[in-house]
């Protein structure tokens, strides 16, 4: 693509001026303020709950708990099989299933009065013994009761054990929390039996279904608005109890209710990346050919829903190995249910796999990239299909050159810069290219502007900008003439944003709808007297003008065409689904993160002196926003690698660092030098644009790249994330 390949974000003006309106910011007449009061135990029952003081506090309009809630009719319905369990039904009864589970909601006329009244609610509990420690509870592991939970074997099970060179290690990642900057928030209101919400969701249509289900109404009766999201990273993939609570409150009071979670509640009530223990078994010949690979994961879930993710999946296909076994188990703990967090399971899995590959390369005394190249998979052995495209080798080359890989020595601790130990490391990432049926309406306005409508929303990657670029390319209009309407129900139905599928799904729909619209326009133009006798195939459309390729003097403007036809002649709503050809191929994006670390072993200080993130994501629609997404994925991976961990005091079953001062995410000073490299070669199969998806793979592989670089610098192998300073600290010896 050409002139649109580097356009600025089309919502940039709104975002830099503060005029972009996020969910709870919609000015709503008569809105009142709600908050949730959480349980202070992790498991048990509510014995008493004293809400009187809160009810009497100035400004309080309602206090709702299980004692007085009008239960939504859907609470009585059967379990939802898609959730592998039953989502927490807020205020349903006196049961407490996790720490900080909402036990009451206070609604008052002002924010301050609501906040204060919430402090007046006191509950007594009948405590039961809770389990929040996966390390202690892992013996209770079980399979997930779906076919996705089945064990996988190719060739000889656990064949790694029979190899000449064997590596067997355990890797752990702690619970990590999405923590988008915008707090989870909602404004809920009802008109009769029809609710309207302004809420933080990644899927407008999905939220309609969830809310409809809970309240026993058709999804079409639920209006969802979510035009701007202040990030989500996966936490918006679920409709959470806070959203249902706000709707319950709004219905009771018959007034709009605004509910914004506290940052503390973002750690306890809206999901997280689950604590996962992984066992890796790798076997190779002395020459470095992989002969067996086993990947086992034990991950936490809640007591009421079975959550699983693709932690072990990458191990089945990323390397050329005939004997692969993977197993995935879950353990029920007394917490909120996890939810996919950026990169999701693949990020967790790649930490184990790519650390183990580095360890095995070290055992073999091989360069880690040479080792990977030796085991390069020319086809997908899991699905037994060819790759639609795979430029992973280009990623290796591009990264090696930029990071200065030639300066790396296989022997740890052998490179120094001043007092700093220098280490180089890399980690491979991948993520499937998914595409879901998506409708986009494309129409020309009388002024010649193109409007693209889709209910998909944009949590940050630049969906509107991508739609603009594709729409402008196909219609030949300047990007300034493309108007995007999105992020709310009532528009052509778009997908949930997640799984790196938005560009593939929505972009394809924009592509198809715009092509149909252009055909329609050319058809109408062909019928005009100007083009009498000119075959439609000779007509071209650019900058709002239809002209004949053979006779440049003949032109018809779009504006004149519109004025002489009906407006609906310039509208197309089309659903794009993909084709059979896609099923013949294995379609994946690939990424490789390279890092150069500087380590001061006396203080355990790790500096990321240079980070190079390379990706094969097919066609790059917009270099600027894609680079931004890749930088950001790398930063997310840096958080995962170096600092993020939800710490639980298992005596109380509660997190101890559930705030932004104690749960560390990277700050500006942590990011010294970052580069991004895209192969930018079109995938011939994935979709009309040839894109493969970026959001997830942008993070996958970063954490092991850091762990591998730290090992290269210090000789210390950290297998439990995050790599905090205490794990690499060296007692220094007096030079006496």
């Amino acid at each position: 693509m050409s002139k649109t390949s580097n356009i600025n974000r089309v919502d940039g003006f709104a975002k830099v001026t503060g005029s972009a309106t996020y969910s709870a910011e919609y000015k709503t007449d008569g809105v009142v303020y709600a908050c949730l009061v959480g349980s202070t135990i992790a498991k048990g029952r509510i014995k008493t709950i004293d809400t009187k003081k809160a009810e009497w506090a100035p400004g309080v309009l309602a206090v709702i708990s299980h004692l007085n809630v009008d239960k939504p009719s859907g609470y009585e319905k059967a379990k939802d099989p898609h959730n592998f369990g039953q989502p927490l039904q807020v205020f349903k009864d006196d049961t407490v299933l996790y720490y900080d589970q909402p036990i009451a909601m206070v609604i008052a006329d002002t924010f301050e009065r609501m906040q204060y009244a919430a402090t007046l609610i006191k509950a007594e509990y009948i405590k039961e013994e809770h389990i929040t420690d996966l390390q202690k509870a892992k013996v209770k592991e079980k399979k997930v009761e779906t076919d996705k939970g089945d064990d996988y074997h190719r060739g000889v099970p656990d064949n790694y054990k029979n190899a000449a060179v064997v590596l067997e290690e355990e890797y752990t990642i702690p619970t990590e929390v999405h923590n988008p900057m915008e707090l989870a928030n909602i404004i809920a209101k009802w008109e009769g039996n029809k609710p309207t919400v302004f809420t933080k969701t990644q899927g407008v249509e999905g939220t309609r279904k969830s809310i409809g289900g809970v309240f026993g109404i058709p999804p079409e009766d639920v209006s969802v608005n979510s035009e701007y999201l202040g990030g989500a990273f996966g936490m918006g993939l679920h409709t959470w109890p806070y959203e249902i609570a706000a709707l319950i409150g709004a219905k009771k009071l018959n007034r709009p209710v605004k509910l914004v979670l506290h940052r503390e509640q973002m750690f306890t009530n809206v999901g997280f990346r689950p604590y996962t223990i992984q066992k890796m078994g790798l076997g190779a010949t002395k020459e470095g050919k992989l002969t067996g690979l086993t990947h086992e994961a034990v991950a936490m879930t809640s007591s009421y829903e079975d959550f699983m993710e693709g932690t072990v999946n990458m191990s089945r296909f990323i390397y050329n190995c005939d004997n692969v076994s993977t197993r995935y188990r879950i353990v029920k703990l007394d917490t909120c249910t996890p939810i996919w967090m950026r990169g999701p399971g693949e990020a967790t899995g790649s930490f184990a796999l790519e650390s183990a590959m580095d360890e095995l390369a070290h055992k073999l005394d091989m360069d880690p990239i040479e080792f990977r190249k030796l085991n390069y998979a020319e086809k997908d052995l899991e699905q037994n299909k060819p790759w639609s495209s795979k430029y992973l080798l280009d990623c290796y080359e591009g990264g090696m050159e930029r990071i200065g890989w030639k300066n790396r020595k296989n022997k740890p601790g052998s490179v120094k810069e001043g007092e700093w130990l220098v280490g180089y490391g890399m980690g491979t990432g991948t993520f499937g290219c998914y595409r879901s049926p998506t409708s986009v309406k494309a129409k020309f306005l009388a002024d010649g502007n193109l409007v693209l409508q889709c209910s998909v929303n944009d949590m940050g990657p630049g969906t509107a900008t991508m739609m603009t670029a594709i729409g402008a390319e196909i219609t030949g209009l300047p990007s300034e003439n493309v108007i995007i309407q999105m992020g709310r129900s009532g528009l052509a139905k778009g997908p949930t944003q997640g799984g790196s599928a938005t560009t593939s799904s929505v972009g394809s729909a924009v592509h198809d709808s715009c092509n149909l619209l252009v055909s329609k326009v050319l058809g109408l133009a062909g019928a005009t007297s100007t083009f009498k006798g000119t075959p439609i195939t000779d007509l071209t459309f650019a900058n709002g003008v239809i002209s004949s390729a053979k006779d440049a003097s003949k032109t018809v403007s779009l504006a004149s065409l519109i004025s002489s036809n009906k407006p609906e002649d310039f509208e197309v709503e089309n659903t794009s689904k993909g084709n059979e050809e896609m099923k013949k191929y294995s379609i994946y994006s690939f990424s490789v993160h390279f890092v150069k670390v500087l380590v001061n072993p006396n203080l355990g200080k790790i500096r990321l002196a240079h980070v190079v993130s390379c990706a094969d994501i097919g066609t790059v629609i917009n270099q600027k926003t894609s680079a931004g997404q890749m930088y950001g994925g790398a930063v997310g991976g840096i958080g995962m690698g170096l600092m993020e961990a939800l710490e639980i005091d298992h005596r109380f079953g509660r997190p101890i660092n559930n705030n932004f001062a104690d749960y560390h995410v990277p700050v500006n000073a942590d990011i010294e030098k970052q580069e991004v490299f895209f192969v930018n070669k079109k995938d011939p199969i994935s979709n009309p644009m040839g894109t493969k998806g970026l959001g997830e793979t942008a993070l996958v592989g970063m954490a092991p790249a850091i762990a591998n670089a730290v090992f290269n610098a210090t000789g210390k192998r950290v297998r439990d994330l995050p790599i905090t300073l205490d794990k690499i600290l060296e007692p220094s010896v007096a030079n006496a």
Partner: protein
Amino acid sequence: MAAKKSTRNKLTEDESNASRRDFLKKSGLFTALALAPPSLVMASEKKWDEKIAEYLETVPLSLEVNGVKQNLNVEPRTTLLDLLREQLHLTGTKKGCDHGQCGACTVHVNGTRILSCLTLASMQQNAQVTTIEGLSKGKKLHPMQEAFIKNDGFQCGYCTPGQIMSGIACIKEGHANSREEIREYMSGNICRCGAYHNIVDAITEVKEGGMLS
């Protein structure tokens, strides 16, 4: 499980009054009542409650926000952030943590960048407050806003107003002399999308272009 329903309606009026008076005594209103004329005290005891409480529990506040004089009554406990967002509907200033741990609420008070979530509005008498909404003049953007768009210094946009307010201050304070210094002095503004590289680019461009006097 012996808990029973306890709604306000089920209480007798006497019970309600007694409890409410008890509550009021413990609240800040008690202090205010001590200072109030006797007639108001009487009024309160006759439970003209919430409107009076609202009046008694607020203090007058005059301040200038983005050049516009505001004469308000605020509760002493209202933060500048909540005043801006919930009462003045200036929602460009964001609430990310509400505890001084993220920088999303950064505004300028009397020319200095501060965190509005930890600032009591009642202590800002006569202050001049500038928020993100006060930077642009219609379609004409501030150079830092332009630079953020050009350098793609954001994704979701939620930390962006705070980053921009902070970035302008960073240059004005003289802390934008190198990328390293910018990184340190911008570390009070968390960006979970991870746009730090581009944020530093944007600030560097404005600084080097001499676009801020």
